[in-house]
C-alpha cells in the first residue's frame, strides 16, 4: 500500500516491493539469475506503478509538469519499442495528416488506455492544423 507521504528514494524505502513490468521483483534481478539464464531484457523495463509513484513524488515536490510527464510515461510502458518510435515520428512536423494524428490519439486511448497522452496528441493535432504542420488530408 502507498503511504500518505511517499518516502524517497524508493530504492531505500520500498525497494523490496518494486517489480519490473514483467512482475519480477527487484530482488530477483541479480547477476546470479542472469548467469542462470533466467532474465530477459523485458525484465529491466519499468512498471507503470513505479512511474506513478515517481509522479506522485514529483508532484509533492512541486514539479507538476514532470509529474504529468511521468504519468504519460506510465501509460506508454506497454507500447512496443517500434510502435513507440513510429508514434514519435508521426508527431514530428509534416509527417501526418490531421486525421492520422487524431486516430493515433484514439488508438492510444482505446488500445493502451493512455488518456493523458491521447490528450496531448489531440492538442498537437489541433495546433498542427492551425499552423499548417499537418500533411494534406487524404
Amino acid at each position: 500500500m502507498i503511504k500518505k507521504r511517499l518516502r524517497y528514494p524508493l530504492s531505500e524505502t520500498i525497494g523490496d516491493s518494486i517489480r519490473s513490468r514483467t512482475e519480477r521483483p527487484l530482488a530477483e534481478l541479480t547477476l546470479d539469475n542472469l548467469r542462470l539464464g533466467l532474465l530477459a531484457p523485458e525484465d529491466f523495463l519499468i512498471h507503470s506503478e513505479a512511474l506513478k509513484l515517481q509522479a506522485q513524488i514529483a508532484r509533492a515536490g512541486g514539479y507538476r509538469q514532470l509529474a504529468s510527464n511521468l504519468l504519460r510515461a506510465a501509460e506508454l510502458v506497454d507500447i512496443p519499442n517500434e510502435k513507440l518510435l513510429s508514434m514519435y515520428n508521426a508527431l514530428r512536423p509534416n509527417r501526418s495528416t490531421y486525421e492520422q494524428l487524431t486516430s493515433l490519439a484514439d488508438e492510444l486511448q482505446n488500445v493502451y488506455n493512455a488518456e493523458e497522452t491521447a490528450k496531448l496528441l489531440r492538442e498537437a493535432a489541433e495546433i498542427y492544423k492551425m499552423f499548417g504542420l499537418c500533411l494534406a488530408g487524404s
Partner: protein
Amino acid sequence: MNGQTKGSKRFARLAQRPINKDTFIQEWPEVGLIAMDSASDPKPSLKIVDGVIEEMDGKARADFDMIDHFIARHAVDLERSAEAMATPSKELARMLVDIHVPRQEIVQLISGCTPAKVVEVVNHLTVLEMMMALAKMRIRRTPANQAHVTNRKEHPALMAADAAEASLRGFAEIETTVKVARMAPLSAMAILIGSQAGRGGVLTQCAVEEALNLRLAIKGLTTYSETLSVYGTDPAFIDGDDTPWSKAFLASAYASRGIKIRFTSGTGSEVLMGHAQGKSMLYLETRCLMVVKGAGSQGVQNGSISCVALPESLPGGVRAILAENLIATLLGLEVASGNDALASHSDIRKSAKLMLQFIPGTDLVTSGYSAVPREDNLFGGGNFDAEDLDDWNVIQRDMSIDGGIHPVREDDVLRVRERAARAVQAVFQELGFPTITEAEVGAATYAHAGTDMPNRDQVADLAAAERFLQGQQTILEVIQALDAHGYGDIAERVLEMQRQRIIGDYLQPSAIFDDDFRVLSAINDPNDYQGPGTGYRPAGKRWQAIQDLPQAVNPREMVGEAPTPIALRLQSIGPAAQGVDMEVVVALGPAFGEEITTTIGGLSHSDVLREVMAGIAEEGVSARLVRVLATSDCAFIGHEGAKLSGSGVAIGIQSKGTTVIHQRDLEPLNNLELFPQAPALSLDSYRQIGRNAARYAKGKATTPVSVPVDNTVRLRLIVKATLMHLRETKRVVLGALPLELQVTWHEEPL
C-alpha cells in the same frame, strides 16, 4: 580584430594576443544579434478568462504562435499568476538575492510568470546578483560535473580507458558522440563499461539523432539522454524537425523505459538558424526554457552550448548566458550549465566566464568537460580539456569550491584505465566483435591522445556495431561477457544501472548517483542555501579530496632536510668586540653555514663567504666575521654588524642569501645597498658587494652593484624562502649578543 595597426608597437603586440583572435560585433537588434533586452522584446502581460490565457506578453490568443500555445497551456501556473504578475519585477529581482526568501517561494511565484515577465525580472540583476541568485536557486544542493569522452579514431579501448579515468576523477556523467553515426553502439558500450570500471554510478549517454538515441537507450547501452533540443521561435523549432508536442512525447517515451532525459537549448541558436524574429537571445531562450518545463523535462543543458561564441561576440553576452542558467533554475529545472564548447581563444576570458557558474555552483558545472585532448574532442573542441585538469583542481582548492572533480594519483589512473580496456577487450571477444589486441590495451592504458593508439579496421568495427544494433543482443549479453571473463564487479555495476531503470528514482529532478548507487536529487538533496552558514560547501572528506593535490608537498619535511655538507667551519670564539680599526664586519644570520649551508639560489655558503671576503680584500680592507643570534631579519643583522664595525660599515647576510650593506648611523631599516632577491645574486655579485662595502668604509665614491631583475623569483621561491626563514628564525636567541667567529676553509666538504 586582426586589422593593420598604425605603427604603435603596443597596439601591434595587443593585436597578436589570443583575445584578438575572438570576433566582436556591435548589436544589430533587427535580426536578433542582441544578447538581452531588445527594444522589440515584448512587455509582460497576462489576461486569463475562464481559466484560459487570452493574452500573454502583449499578444492576443488569436495571434499566438505555436510556442505561445504550448507555453500558455503547459508552462504557466494559472493559480500563481495573479500574484506573480502583480508583483513588480524589481521586487521579484530583489527576492532572488534576498537570503531571507527561500528558494521554494521564488519557484512558486515564477511558475505563474510569462516569459517576458521572467526576462524583465532577470534584466534587473547584475552578474554578481545573478551569481548570488544561482547559488540559492540551483535545485540540487551538491554540485557535480559532466565529462565528454571521444577520440578521433573512435577507438573503443581508448574510449573505455578515458571514461574510466573520467569517472575516477569524479565526473557524475559522461557523454560521448560519434564521427560516424553507425559507430554509436560500440562507443556507447565502451564508455558505459569504462565508466563503471572507474567507479559505480556514473551516468552515460551518446549524442546522436533522436530515434537512434532512443534505440541505444532501449538496448541498455546508455543510461540517460540530453539531445532533446528545443528552440525559441516556430520556424527554428520546425527546422529542428520537432515541435514542443513531439518533444514532450519523446520525453515520456524515454521515461516509459526508465531513462533519464534532459533537454538542450541555449542563446543564439535561433539567430544562427536565421529565425530570431528580431528578439533578444535571452527572451527566445526563456521561451525555450518554458517549453522545456511545459514538456515535463526534469532539466536542461543550457548556457548557449555550441553557439557560445555568438552571444560572446556581443555586448553583455556572457551576462546573458549566466541569466539563462539562472532562469532554468527559477523554473525548477536541473541545469547543466554550458562551459563545454570552445568559447574563446583567450584562457583569461574562458576562465573569467567559467567563474560565473563555477563559484555559485550548478547541478553540472559544465555540460561536458572535455576529459580528452582537444584534438580528440568530437563535440567541436572543448572549452576546457584534459590538459586543463590540474588547473581546474587547483582553482577548486584555491577557492574551497566543489567543481565536481578531484585530484587523482597516476597509479590509480593507470590501474582503472587498464582494467577498462581489458574489460572491453573481453566483451569484444565474447560477442564476436573485431579483436582488441594486447598492444591496443597497453596503448590505451598509457595513452594521452588518439594518436598514441594503433589504427583499427573501422569497416569491421562499423559492421559489428550495425550487427549489434539490428540483432537481438542487448546490454545483458555484455554483462554476461564481463562476468565470464573475471570482471564481476564491473558486471554488477553495469547491471545496477539497468536495475535502477525499474526503480525510477533517477527520473526525479537533477538525479545523479554516488559510488554506491545512492541517488542524489533535488528531492532528497534539495538546495537549502539561505545565506552564510547554510547550503553546500565542501567539508570533511570531500574537502580533503579536493585539496589533496599530488604535487603538494609537506612543508614540515622541507624544513627538516639535513644541510648539505660544505668546506667551511665557523667557530665562535666569544662575544664580538667593538671594532676600532678600518674594517668591514661581515655579520651572518643565526643558521648561516650550520643549520643552513646553501642560499636559496643554490650557492654554497663557503663560496659566498669566500667571495665577499675576497671583494673586501681587493680594496685593501680587512674583514671580521660575527654571528648575530638575536635576530633573523636581514636589516637588523646588517645593522648589528655595523654597530660593531670599526669603520661603521658592515655586510649582513641571511642564510637564504639575502644581503645588505649597512652603516652604523643609518636607521636599521634604511641601508647603503640592499639585495632582496637572493636567487638573482651570483658569486660575482657577492664579490662586488664585498668590494663596495670596503669602498664605503674608506669613504670612496661607489657605484651600486647592478643585479639582474627576475620578476618570477617571488612567485617561484616564496614558499622556499618562507621555510628557510622559519628554519633560521628557530635559531634566534632573543637578547643574545653577537659572537666573534673564526673561519677555517677546508679542501673537501665536511
